[in-house]
């Protein structure tokens, strides 16, 4: 037997999670047993991780290598119009590694976090997880936009299933469908983009050159879907609600991987996006606005997961803005580092929630002494996110800012800087509120989580520290160049970040500044509470769409169908009337015969 080729490894990385999902889904005893299903799922994730590590190692040796293997999938007029397969190159393999590393960490973490679930629910949870990893890999390794769309929709499905994991809880059920509808709304754009792309080029290929306005139209449609999936303003509304899912799910799907799929998609379609400067401009502005907007809201959140959710929106805004500035490298680098520290933060939050049984920051406090490991790793993640020099977020955020600066996008640049300050502030706030200060009642009985939950935290913390130092290797994989240097953006952003942390310390750590001195932020808090946008969507849905549907339904039953019924009634009634002609009286018939004969005679004699 010959040595496995990259293609084989790619198949292993793609299909093992699918096999695990199928086993857990189809073999009911396995699923109901719980723990064995979890082990199957984790084994598949590990295998996938191993395969992607092997692949990436090979890729680093030969960065320009691109393995593409496809088979025909759909015929038209005797030839193949769509293919499925694998594309293994620098872009897909680095994303594949991120997905599998974070997924494996999250799955191991879930062993402890979800341990209280009944076995069948536990098995179901892992089945969905495996399905998610498969879908994400399907998207990442896609050789064309069509397969990527399939993966894109399937991750949306698994997101729906996992947010709705506690399906008996009405708020979770609501959040799940909301997430699906909002992202599906965006996905209409991607579907339309697929149709247009096929009409223009006769294929769904990644590298396309289009003439005229089509590049702008198609990229704008793709971006519309990205806005939905990557939770950008104004379609970000589903992400905070998505926190109804179990916390490890938030870490994997709604922080590290699925929501970043939008960024990945744009990176993949970069050859098309560079032909559409108009779309790029829109991306820069929307990304920067989201980064600032979500950071502001994050400051006033009371729920630790919601802080992190808005922070995710904000950081995704950075990436989108970088893409708008035309820097694939910056966006992708930030995606990578963000995946590590945001997954770490979510898992850390999960560890805390597991200990105090509450999401509310007010129920925490003083956990530093009770949960040393969680605290240390969480703080590493928070510092990385805040952009403290030396940690991963510092390098990538710096690169994003520099790219935006270079492109001369002044206002977006300023927005991102302001967001950097706020980011440091709200993360400092969370750290001081959760881990320091006086413990609340719930926090008094907290204790450190078990080893299955500790180990992933450590792994991700290492990533959050180290990932920043691999900038040049990443750059090589994407075919870009990177060397670290501290420019204007870097200096300003870092000082702002440190200032934000300092302010947070003054307010929430030393408490030398009362929280009430931020009363001027209250209107923002109000705005966040009122969720204006959410209400507008709810209004559109309930008062416009459902009313319209009700109207159409009424119209159908009473007018369209009513006409049919009237015709039927008219036939019956007409028959009833005509029946009267048959009186059964011989005299009547005689009259009729006589009158008829006379009429015929007149008719015959008429000149």
């Amino acid at each position, binding site marked *: 037997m010959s040595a496995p080729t990259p293609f084989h490894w790619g198949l292993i990385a793609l299909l093992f999670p699918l096999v695990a999902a199928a086993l857990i889904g189809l073999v009911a005893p396995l699923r109901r047993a719980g723990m064995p299903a979890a082990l199957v799922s984790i084994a598949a994730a590990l295998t996938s991780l191993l395969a992607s590590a092997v692949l990436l190692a090979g890729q680093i040796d030969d960065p320009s290598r691109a393995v593409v293997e496809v088979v025909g999938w759909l*015929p038209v007029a005797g030839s193949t119009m769509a293919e499925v397969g694998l594309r293994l190159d620098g872009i897909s393999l680095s994303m594949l590694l991120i997905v599998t590393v974070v997924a494996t960490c999250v799955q191991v973490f879930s062993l402890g976090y979800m341990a209280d679930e009944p076995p069948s629910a536990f098995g179901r949870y892992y089945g969905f997880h495996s399905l998610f990893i498969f879908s994400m890999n399907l998207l990442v390794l896609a050789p064309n936009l069509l397969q990527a769309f399939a993966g894109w929709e399937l991750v949306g499905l698994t997101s729906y299933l996992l947010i709705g994991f506690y399906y008996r809880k009405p708020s979770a*059920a609501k959040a799940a469908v909301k997430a699906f509808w909002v992202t599906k709304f965006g996905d209409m754009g991607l579907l339309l983009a697929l149709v247009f792309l096929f009409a223009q080029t006769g294929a769904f290929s990644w590298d396309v050159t289009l003439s005229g306005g089509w590049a702008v139209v198609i990229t704008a449609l793709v971006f519309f879907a990205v806005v939905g999936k990557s939770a950008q303003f104004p379609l970000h509304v589903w992400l905070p609600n998505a926190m109804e899912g179990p916390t490890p799910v938030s870490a994997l799907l709604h922080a590290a991987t699925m929501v970043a799929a939008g960024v990945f998609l744009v990176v993949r379609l970069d050859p098309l996006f560079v032909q559409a400067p108009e779309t790029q401009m829109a991306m820069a502005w929307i990304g920067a606005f989201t980064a600032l907007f979500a950071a502001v809201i994050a400051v006033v959140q009371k729920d630790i997961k919601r802080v992190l959710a808005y922070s995710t929106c904000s950081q995704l805004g950075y990436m989108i803005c970088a893409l708008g500035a035309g820097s694939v490298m910056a966006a992708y680098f930030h995606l990578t580092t963000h995946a590590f520290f945001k997954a770490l933060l979510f898992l850390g939050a999960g560890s805390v929630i597991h200990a105090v049984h509450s999401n509310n920051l007010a129920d925490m406090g003083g956990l530093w002494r009770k949960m040393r490991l969680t605290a240390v790793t969480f703080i590493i993640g928070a510092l990385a996110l805040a952009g403290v020099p030396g940690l991963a977020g510092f390098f990538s955020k710096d690169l994003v800012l520099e790219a935006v600066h270079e492109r001369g996008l002044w206002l977006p640049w300023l927005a991102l800087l302001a967001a950097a300050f706020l980011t440091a502030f709200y993360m400092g706030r969370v750290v001081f509120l959760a881990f320091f200060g006086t413990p609340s009642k719930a926090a008094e009985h907290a204790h450190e989580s078990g080893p299955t939950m500790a180990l992933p935290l450590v792994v991700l913390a290492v990533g959050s520290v180290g990932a920043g130092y691999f900038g040049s290797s990443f750059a090589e994989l994407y075919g870009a160049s990177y060397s670290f240097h501290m420019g204007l953006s870097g200096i300003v952003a870092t000082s702002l970040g440190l200032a934000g942390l300092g302010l947070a310390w003054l307010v929430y750590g030393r408490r030398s500044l009362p929280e009430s001195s931020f009363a001027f932020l209250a209107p923002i808090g109000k705005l966040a509470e009122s969720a204006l946008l959410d209400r507008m969507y709810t209004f559109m849905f309930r008062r416009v769409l459902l009313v319209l549907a009700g109207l159409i339904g009424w119209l159908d039953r009473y007018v369209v169908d009513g006409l049919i019924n009237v015709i*039927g009634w008219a036939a019956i009634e007409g028959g009833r009337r005509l029946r009267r002609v048959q009186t059964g009286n011989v005299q009547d018939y005689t009259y009729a015969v006589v009158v008829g004969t006379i009429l015929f005679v007149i008719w015959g004699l008429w000149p």
Partner: protein
Amino acid sequence: MIGILSTLVAAPFLAAVVLLLVPDRARLLVRLISLTGAGVALALSVRVAADYDLDAGGFQMPELYPLVPAMGIDLRLAVDGWGVSLLLLTGVIIFAGVLASWTVKERSKDFFILLLVLVAGVCGVFVCQDLFVFFLFYEIAVLPMYLLIGIWGSSQGVTEAGPFRYVWKLFDIGGREYAAMKLTLMLLVGSAVLLVGILAMYFAAGGTTFDMEVLGATAYPRDMQLWVFPLLWLGFGSLAGVFPFHTWSPDGHASAPTAVSMLHAGVLMKLGAFGVMRVGMMMVPEGAVYWAPLVGGVAVVNIVYGALSAMSQRDLKYIIAYSSVSHMGIVMLGAATLTVNGWNGAVYQMFAHGIMTGLFFALVGIIYERAHTRFIPSMGGFAKVMPGVAVFFTLAGLSSLGMPGTAGFVAELMVFLGAWESASPWWTIPAILGAFLTAIYVLRAVRGIFWGPGPDPAFEDLADARGTEWGALVVLGAALVLFGCWPGLIVDFIDRVTPGYLGVLTQGVVP
């Protein structure tokens, strides 16, 4: 020597005849004979697919038995790629349908006899090459519905409130007799219109033969094509649920027993669309091209209007019925595009929607049988007591909203691509919007029925699917996924003949 196609058509019919000889009381025997008839139909349809020579294409396995030579009526059978895929659909649906109606108690023998006769008619339509016999089979497929709904249907409609309650009572709207009568009358009016069109073609072509090949090759005068096509479109279209002649569908499908809804929405509505394409568009091409903008426009109305109507319903069966109206709109849209992708998509959507809606109605039947209600607001939390049903319902829902990995996605994608290539590209946009609206009403239904706290104490001991019901669900669910992941299995057959048909169609038309 009797050919495979006539055996296929005769098998369900023979099973029905055998059933006549079996006593009513031997329930198991009745069921087994029906299952055998259905199984043979399924096996033979698979065999036809295997025997069909993909390289050769065209019509294959021809058979000819003269019936009325004086009028040129013969029993001509042959099958093409479209026929192969639709035969497979019929085989799968009837097999699952018999399994799903395993527990019919009331006069089960008569029920199965009618069901099998109906299926024989359906198979006949898909392989028939003589227009007269085509029409005959078509009627055989439609008429048993009257008895099936009228006798075995359910009368429990959703009680209507509001100013029109009196009218509803007056007409017995929602009752099974009303539904059966309405469905049959509307379809018969359609058939009458259709017959005019068919006879017009027969006489215009010389009045010597009903051979569809000859009738199709005849170049009718343009004026005639322009008035014949609407007759064929509306005649067949009434069965395909074309707006505004779709209103029999919600009442009919809601009142019909499980297997009948499965067959009717799953296969019979496809007869209508198949007829529009095979007889309408292919035989009077100039008419088809002339009227295509209207056909497609109405199809788009079907898609959006059906989806919105479905959204406003609270009765589970009405939701599924309106969703059929919406999805048949996608079939008709594909047909109206007159492009290879559109036609492939239309035929594949017939297949995909057939399986999907069959699965839906099988599940609704299971839920209704246990809970004795179809009113969604009274449900909730059913996933706890019937997890299997919840899983399959979600699967069917995903196919209907076009989730990749299910057959529905492939079909919709092809239709969307075709629509954009067609003469009226704007169709694509409302069609895609329709898919989004589907996501709304389907997931609302899933949430309303299966998610949330509960179930109500009254529903606490509802049983999950059991025995043969699993058979039906698994067959249909597996087909959805298999043909969604590997669409070539079916699309290869369809695509083998579509370009040729379209070539002929567009050739015959002088622009």
